[in-house]
């Protein structure tokens, strides 16, 4: 919104479709280029600066094995196997931090080690995987992309989704531009405020205005709402202002409306029924051609005659003679009739509209609130539903987690008082050292931000250990 409305002008000379096509092509090209070239560039930048310097001294080191039996190594397990205490993983981390590894990566995060990496160990390390000797010389190899199992696929999915989103958006925008003004939304300044005006918006197509000018018998209204019965002023509109009917007798005080025929029935008024003819075109039957009982400008019958003439038209079911421009684009999206109302071409239409408003306002009873819920209720319910469904989904998922792993697992805190040391570094439940004593967990508890600094520090995610932690 801000971006688009920020700077105007300048770019309007190119045909819009061409400009959008060029923009779409550029965007897609840029994304593809970034996806194809990005990792390689970053990897070469990573591997270039310095080669690992061979260590002349004989040290103890450990080669990270490939994951076996679904169990991946972590600094914690390495420390537990070689030093006897997984909590000392930070010593290994500090010894190896930033050193180039055979696959081009570097140890920068204690949570992430990869198979094949050579980890220097403290002097007191011992165990089956501990080697002793000069630290092997590491030469930078081909590009290295730090990744986790499954991470690349996920990232590809994200990028693909983003790409699809952008391309779809641009395509839809282009189609909207190309198809023409029939699909375009009207700019805000050209819209009417307040409730949507209807000549039967949302009703059958023939309830819209189908003739360029209303006959004198018409009442034009924008106040009728969907599902709302017509107001109480059920009289025909006044005669045409340019040729007032001599048959119409104004009351002595000038305050009264023209004489009206008695309504044959009250609500509900169904389209097509004779009673509907007392009401504006918003409730008319498809195909009805409203006709004047007399040519405009000639003396003629009273409004009752209009009523009678038009009542006879009920049986006429011919299609509308033509569509008024703006009311509906053939083959396009249905345009609501309030647009047509906005473009009333001459004073006759406006006068007709104003007449109706005057008569409506003059009626003794104010327009009643529509019975039941307003039409916006449905949209609101949809939005609330869109919020409620994912929340319910989340609650069900959380309940499942709670039932599966227990309260101690579910109530998790990464830092601060009561931190349970799980978090983004927690490994899958299947390879947790359930028998790990909680003391190891508490020993590392106040160093940095354990949830992000370190590998899993011994707290079991199983309910047993969680219970043990709570009791300690």
């Amino acid at each position, binding site marked *: *919104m*801000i*971006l688009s*409305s*920020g*700077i*105007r002008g*300048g770019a309007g000379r190119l045909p819009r479709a061409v400009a959008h096509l060029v923009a779409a092509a550029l965007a897609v090209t840029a994304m593809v280029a*970034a*996806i194809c070239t*990005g990792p390689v560039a*970053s990897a070469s930048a990573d591997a270039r600066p310095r080669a690992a310097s061979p260590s002349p001294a004989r040290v103890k080191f450990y080669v990270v094995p490939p994951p076996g039996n679904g169990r991946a190594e972590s600094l914690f397990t390495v420390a537990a196997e070689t030093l006897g205490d997984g909590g000392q993983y930070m010593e290994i981390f500090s010894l190896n931090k930033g050193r180039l590894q055979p696959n081009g990566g570097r140890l*920068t*995060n204690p*949570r992430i080690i990869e198979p094949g990496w050579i980890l220097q160990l403290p002097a007191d390390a011992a165990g089956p995987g501990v080697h002793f000797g000069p630290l092997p010389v590491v030469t930078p190899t081909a590009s290295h992309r730090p*990744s986790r199992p499954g*991470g*690349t696929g*996920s*990232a*590809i*999915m*994200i*990028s693909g989704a983003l790409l699809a989103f952008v391309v779809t958006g641009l395509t839809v925008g282009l189609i909207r531009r190309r198809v023409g003004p029939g699909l375009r*939304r009207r700019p805000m300044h050209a819209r009417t405020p307040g409730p949507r005006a209807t000549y039967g918006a949302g009703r059958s197509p023939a309830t819209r205005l189908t003739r360029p000018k209303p006959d004198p018998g018409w009442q034009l209204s924008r106040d009728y709402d969907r599902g709302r019965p017509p107001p109480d002023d059920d009289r025909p509109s*006044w005669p045409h*202002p340019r040729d007032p009917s001599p048959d119409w007798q*104004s009351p002595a005080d*000038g*305050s009264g409306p023209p004489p009206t025929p008695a309504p044959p029935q009250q609500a509900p008024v169904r389209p097509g029924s004779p009673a509907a003819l007392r009401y504006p075109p918003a409730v008319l039957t498809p195909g009805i051609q409203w006709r004047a009982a007399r040519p405009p400008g000639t003396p003629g019958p009273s409004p009752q005659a209009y009523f009678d003439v038009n009542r006879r038209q009920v049986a006429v079911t011919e299609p509308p003679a033509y569509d008024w421009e703006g009311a509906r684009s053939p083959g396009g999206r249905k345009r609501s009739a309030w647009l047509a109302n906005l473009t009333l071409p001459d004073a006759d239409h406006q*006068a007709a509209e104003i*007449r109706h408003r*005057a008569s409506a*306002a003059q009626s003794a009873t104010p327009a009643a609130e529509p019975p039941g819920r307003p039409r*916006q209720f449905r*949209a*609101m319910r949809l*939005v*609330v539903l*869109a919020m409620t469904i994912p929340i319910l989904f*989340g*609650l069900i*998922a*959380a309940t*499942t*987690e709670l039932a599966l792993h227990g309260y101690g697992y*579910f109530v*998790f*805190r990464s830092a*601060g*008082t*009561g931190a349970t040391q*799980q978090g*983004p570094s*927690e490994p899958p*439940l299947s390879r947790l050292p359930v028998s790990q004593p909680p003391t190891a967990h508490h020993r590392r508890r*106040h160093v*940095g*931000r354990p949830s*992000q600094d370190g590998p899993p520090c011994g707290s079991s995610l199983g309910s047993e250990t969680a219970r043990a932690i709570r009791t300690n």
Partner: protein
Amino acid sequence: MRVITGIRNGASHKDQLEAVMAKPVAGTGAARRRSAEQARERPPTAKNPVDAWMDQDFKFAGSVIKRKTAAVFLLGIPALAPLFFMSRAVIELNSSTMNQVEADVLGTGSMALLILTLTITPVVTLTRQHWFVPLRKWYGIVLGCTATADAILAAITTSFAGGVIGRLAGHTFLLVGFVMVSLLFPLLLISNSRAQRRLGKYWKPLQKLTYVIWGLLFLHLALLEGFGFQNGTNGPGSGFDHNPVLHQRLYQLTACSLPLLLLRLRPVKRWVARQQKAGRERAVYLTFLPLAALYILFFAYIVNEEILKGVSAFRLQPVNG
């Protein structure tokens, strides 16, 4: 109403019609007509001198734009920073960076954006300026995008047990965060004029769910980090920088929310309006100066962390701590 008045006063039918046709604007009335005439007489001026200054046009790059348009544009750009910081990691498929700092970059960014969104109204109350009000919608939209991106990346790249569902709702704070995003995303979708028209009077109450999200953010941070002071390293290494309170997100949010909440209370707003009406704006500013200083101090730490973590994420060398 004018039309009705004329009819009831016994004007002739022709006069009535002419009067009606002369003014085809709906909903007319004497008061409205008078105000329209007055508006024609005097040039449209903003109530506040700053607003009036912002309403003026100036030439820029061959086009004429308003000052406030340029100002709002410039103030709106930084809101995209969290998404920008993470964009490289997403485009280059760097799952390591996404895994380590996406919560810090996008989560902290979402918190900052929520605070910014909630800041607009109190600033209007204090300054009686309105030129920056469009920023509220913009910050809200970017907040929705950032929070949704945070949830998506967290569901895909973090290492919580339990798969995607476990990463979204496997712990208490995750569940609260997921509820927040579930509320935010529909709000994001209805942040347009069409939805506003469709929803009518329901639009504003729905958008006021932002306050629920505000409350849930407190819960989210309390469940995630508690009330301790461990979260104070803010950089490589693992040492405190002797300002643990300033780094604790829960305290950051609390300090920033205090003036925002206070300036939303009706008695406070009434008092501010009374003072401003009496010409004592300076007293209002002096009263809220300590709270504003508190807000700025803690918000600066939020921005500091966002920039630090964000730049490290953009360099694909994520910083923990």
